[in-house]
């Protein structure tokens, strides 16, 4: 038998087997080819799996973000307020609403300048919120007690926030702020407001599905300025499937309604898709049911 290589050891020499035979080599080559092909197949499949997993993770992350964000923004809406619902507009593609930005408390009685204007002195502590009140963007709700013996007569007075300035002090000597307000509704309502009343500053926000210039769909948010109207829309969650966001609004019986004051539950179906041109079957969707926790008491 011809050999290709020199003997590998004296023992091989003695048995007349020098190196490997051609058959052995061919068998080895075939086996190596099979193993190599398997490894390459493994690597290719792994890469494909990784890309699919990444895309699926992106979709999951998008849906998780929607699940986390939407209840955060919508659960606290006071939809049933008889003086005006917190839901400003409601469509299948999105919702516009009054979003609370700061919570403070009056430290004295308001200074009434007329039936539709006055000053609110709010305490420095406690205060809560995502940011300080901003006159260009915010309006206020103020809690009013018309009849101390009857909680059903209480209401949230509303007004435009005109300016905010530091107050010398509250009646108890602590630091405070003066909120100048105008367009008080209902007129004359400030006489029902007393020390300790909560003051909520809010701005109007819209959450909606929209397509950007590249045609990708997103859940976007835009803010409403009191003088300049709607601002630009900012993508917050996505990408989504085209028109992959649908809102429906339900009353206390569970039926769909188009009347903001009747809304007690908002159902959002969000369908997400990965970036680029993903392989089919990677889209996913989630249904989010948001009960409004601030519905008017029965």
């Amino acid at each position: 038998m011809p050999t290709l290589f020199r003997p590998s050891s004296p023992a091989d020499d003695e048995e007349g087997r020098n190196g490997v035979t051609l058959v052995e080599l061919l068998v080895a080559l075939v086996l190596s080819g099979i193993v190599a092909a398997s490894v390459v197949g493994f690597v290719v499949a792994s890469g494909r799996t990784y890309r699919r997993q990444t895309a699926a993770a992106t979709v999951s992350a998008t849906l998780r973000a929607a699940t986390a964000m939407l209840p955060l923004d919508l659960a606290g809406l006071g939809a049933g307020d008889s003086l005006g619902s917190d839901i400003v507009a409601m469509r299948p593609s999105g919702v516009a609403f009054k979003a609370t930005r700061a919570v403070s408390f009056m430290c004295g009685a308001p200074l009434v300048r007329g039936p539709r204007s006055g000053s609110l002195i709010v305490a420095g502590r406690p205060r809560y919120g995502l940011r300080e009140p901003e006159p260009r963007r915010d309006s206020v709700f103020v809690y009013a007690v018309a009849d101390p013996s009857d909680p059903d007569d209480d209401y949230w007075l509303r007004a435009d926030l005109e300016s905010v300035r530091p107050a010398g002090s509250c009646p108890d000597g602590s630091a405070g702020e003066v909120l100048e307000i105008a367009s008080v509704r209902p007129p004359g309502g400030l006489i029902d407001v007393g020390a300790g009343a909560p003051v909520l500053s809010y701005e109007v926000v819209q959450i909606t599905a929209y397509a950007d210039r590249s045609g990708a769909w997103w859940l976007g948010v835009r803010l409403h300025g009191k003088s300049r109207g709607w601002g630009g829309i900012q993508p917050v969650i996505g990408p989504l499937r085209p028109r992959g966001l649908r809102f429906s609004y339900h009353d206390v019986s569970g039926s769909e309604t188009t009347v903001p004051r009747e809304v007690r539950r908002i159902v959002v179906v969000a369908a997400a898709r990965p970036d680029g041109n993903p392989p089919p079957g990677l889209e996913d969707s989630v249904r989010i049911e948001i009960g409004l926790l601030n519905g008017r008491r029965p």
Partner: protein
Amino acid sequence: MKREAGGALLLALLALVIGGALVSGGWLIGLHELRVAGTAAAPARALAAAEEGAWAQVQGWRSAGYARLPPGGEAAFAGQVAGPLGSFQGSVRRLSELLFLIESEGRDPDDRARQRIGLLVRLQPLDLFIKAALSASGSVRLAEGTRVSGLDEVPAWWDCPPPGGALPGIRLSERSALDLGGCREEGCVTGAPAVLVDSVGEAPGRIAGVEVATLRALADKVMGPGLWTVGPSQVGGRCRYGALSNWGDPDRPGGPCGNYFPLIFAPGGLRLHGGRGQGILVVHGDLAVSGGFRFFGPVLVLGQFDTTGEGGHFSGGVVAATVGVARSGLAGRPVVGYSSCAVRRAVVAQGVPEPVMERSWMRLYRTP
């Protein structure tokens, strides 16, 4: 010895390494997903704990004594969600006479997430029908020197809104049931009008428009028979709410017992000599007062209401079946006066907490 050359071992090792890497990768991805899912659930559990903490305060309102907080006052609370599914801590702050803010921070069991919410709560005062300084379904007998006034009065040292409109001095079912004795109506009884003849009768088991059983259930103190002298009681600057004879301190509104307005229920008769108190006094029997006893708030007597001796002083409103006011001393004159402020403080203290109309629930973020 026979040796064979080749790469089988190497290839086998390579295959093992690749296989191991793939298995490890899959395991890590699975673990990561599990952790993400757990992390995503943690805020929800923390939020549920915060909610439970807030509502637990509403349900345990009376036993926690939150109504005794002065405006601006704050009381802390903490607890566990059964399971344990988390924990909560927070505070109840009195914003005004009627409004409270419950701030509750919840944590998930592994302390991976915290959520803070606020619940605005408003007291619904006990609805007592006080429509005169003195209301009686039966006879009323006054002595010389007695003063019954339906003019709204503000108790001394109390921080009250300006007085409101006057009520009738005496309200009773029949004019003939009123015996002014030596007391002239013009001088002794004032109000708008001084005397009002009206339908004063109550359904059995009710007084001032409320079921007696309801008042009994609300009672902070149940008084036994005997002669009592009551007055504020404190230890180390703290009011002793548990003391049976401590009925609050109307003379020191800013003191430890100044904001304590208990509902006192006497299932049999009650005799009081001297002392002072505030709140709501309900006597399921006869009430006999002497020695210049003073009380601020509604007094509801299902039997006979008698004052004797040195002028008992009632500021709020008295509702009784029959009334007898006698004067035997010279040091004072019995006075029954209407005070909307005293009535309001007393009925608010027995109020039921409810979330305010709309926007009672809110997420609380510390202002940056």
